[in-house]
């Protein structure tokens, strides 16, 4: 997925010299191609994320389209107020790339993990929140971000989980993307980011499950959500994010009072990671790997 990101960014920047890439001294090998192809459009802002977002706001105000890259633990969390006031209040078009969302930086501990970013951003107006699941969705969400008049936060989670779709996806912003289509299934999984891959591992052995990816958390097509959720016995949300304030909360807000069903949000419980370990270890610690989850869906 990171290769798809790099390709999309380089292509966009070559097509439009107003696109600038700002990084807070992150993204070492990721930006090799960008630095080679578009050196004039690359700005390393140093280890100073708050200033970087303010600078991006000034650049956007003057007609540039800044991409602001950081680890999602820092962009958006460390710079939340700059995003709110400098960028979103004026509805400036700045595209925030939060890399390594969720528990990707597993060995490094909670300072580098980001399980609260969606919740923190959802309450800020004039900001899209996009969460691609695979390279196809990455390309799609990049084009959504570039075509939007508003600021966008693009949440990049675990990047090497392969493809969940078999071909490029398209749709308006807010659309849901079918992954395993079984409209008669009484159990529906709505997943986002890395958890779409986990969901598809579970769904492929279970014909009674219908699985959709939700790459656009805000805005989201509420009527499409209601249509897809209608008539189900069970709706499960899968996300590598706190159970508070993420995709689950978003769906719950839409269906509350309209649909009656068993509804469960499966994500990071209200706690920090406890142990050191690799990504698979941390996903197990949080009960989010396919093996642990299969029991839930039996």
């Amino acid at each position: 997925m990171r290769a798809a990101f790099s390709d999309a960014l380089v292509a966009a920047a070559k097509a439009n010299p107003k696109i600038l890439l700002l990084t807070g001294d992150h993204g070492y090998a990721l930006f090799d191609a960008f630095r080679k192809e578009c050196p004039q459009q690359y700005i390393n802002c140093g280890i100073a994320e708050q200033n970087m977002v303010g600078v991006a706001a000034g650049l956007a105000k003057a007609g540039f389209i800044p991409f602001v890259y950081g680890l999602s633990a820092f962009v958006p969390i460390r710079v939340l107020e700059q995003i709110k006031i400098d960028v979103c209040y004026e509805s400036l078009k700045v595209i925030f790339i939060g890399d390594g969302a969720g528990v990707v930086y597993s060995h490094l501990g909670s300072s580098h993990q980001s399980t609260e970013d969606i919740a923190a951003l959802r309450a800020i107006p004039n900001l899209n929140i996009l969460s691609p699941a695979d390279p196809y969705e990455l390309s799609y969400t990049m084009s959504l971000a570039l075509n939007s008049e508003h600021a966008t936060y693009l949440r990049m989670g675990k990047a090497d989980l392969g493809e969940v779709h078999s071909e490029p996806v398209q749709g308006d912003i807010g659309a849901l993307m079918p992954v395993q289509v079984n409209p008669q299934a009484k159990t529906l999984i709505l997943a986002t980011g890395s958890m779409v891959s986990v969901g598809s591992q579970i769904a492929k052995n279970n014909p009674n499950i219908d699985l959709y990816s939700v790459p656009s958390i805000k805005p989201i097509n509420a009527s499409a959500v209601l249509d897809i959720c209608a008539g189900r016995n069970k709706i499960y949300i899968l996300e590598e994010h706190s159970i508070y304030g993420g995709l689950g909360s978003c769906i719950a807000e839409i269906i509350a009072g309209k649909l009656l069903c068993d509804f469960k949000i499966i994500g990071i419980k209200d706690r920090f990671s406890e142990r050191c370990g690799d990504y698979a270890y941390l996903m197990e610690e949080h009960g989010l790997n396919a093996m642990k989850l299969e029991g839930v869906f039996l």
Partner: protein
Amino acid sequence: MDSFNVKNIRKTILDMAFSGSTVHVGCAFSIVEILAVLYRSHLNFPENDVESPIRDYMVLSKGHGVMAQYACLHEKGYLANEDIQQYFKNGSRLKGLADAHIPGIEATTGSLGHGLSVAVGLALAAKLNKTEQMCYVIVGDGEINEGPIWEAALFASQFKLDNLIVIVDKNGFQAMGTTDEVMSLGSIEKKFAAFEFDAVTLNGHSEPELDIAINAFKTNKNGRPKVIVANTVKGKGVSFMENDNIWHYTRLNKETYAAAVAELQGDK
């Protein structure tokens, strides 16, 4: 008439503060001469359009002083009498802190430590576009407690933003006391100089001194950002407000308003 008479500007501020029953008079008064000099002689708005894409930028990072900027925008004709009369009242578009939704105001400030970064972005944009646009930013001395100010200062030097002129309104007060009492700043000029700025200290109420310094800085394209440390008096212009931090918080009543107006209109 484009006079930018500082007594008139202070009178407009008093009128706004009294009719709107609002605070922050002291920190608006300290930057009156700075803004008057900028708007009178330096800020270039092609075809008088404060939103022209090739305008000079003026970022008021210390958003609490916004009444002074409203008064200047009014002098310039960009804000109507009605706007000034409605300031701070229900339904007014003029809020108590600087708000970028108002043409002529470049950044939404008041949460401190934001404006210099936005100004740096604007100055960098002018450099990238190879225009002659200048970017001025007024920061408060209390405000430079904020870390992002120094992040932005590092950036401005690294990217050789010699079209950036930072003006520090050094009135010596912050919310809870003097800057010396709360978070002593030492030499602000030396601090910025250590960040590779060209720096000068002057009397922030002397229009000729400000004029000369700004002229010298804006013509000096030596690759270094500039800072003017402007020694000012909080509440300047009304004797009972000067250097009394209570006028950061106090609302005018009929008596204090009348006394202040009388003093402004007299010769002192």
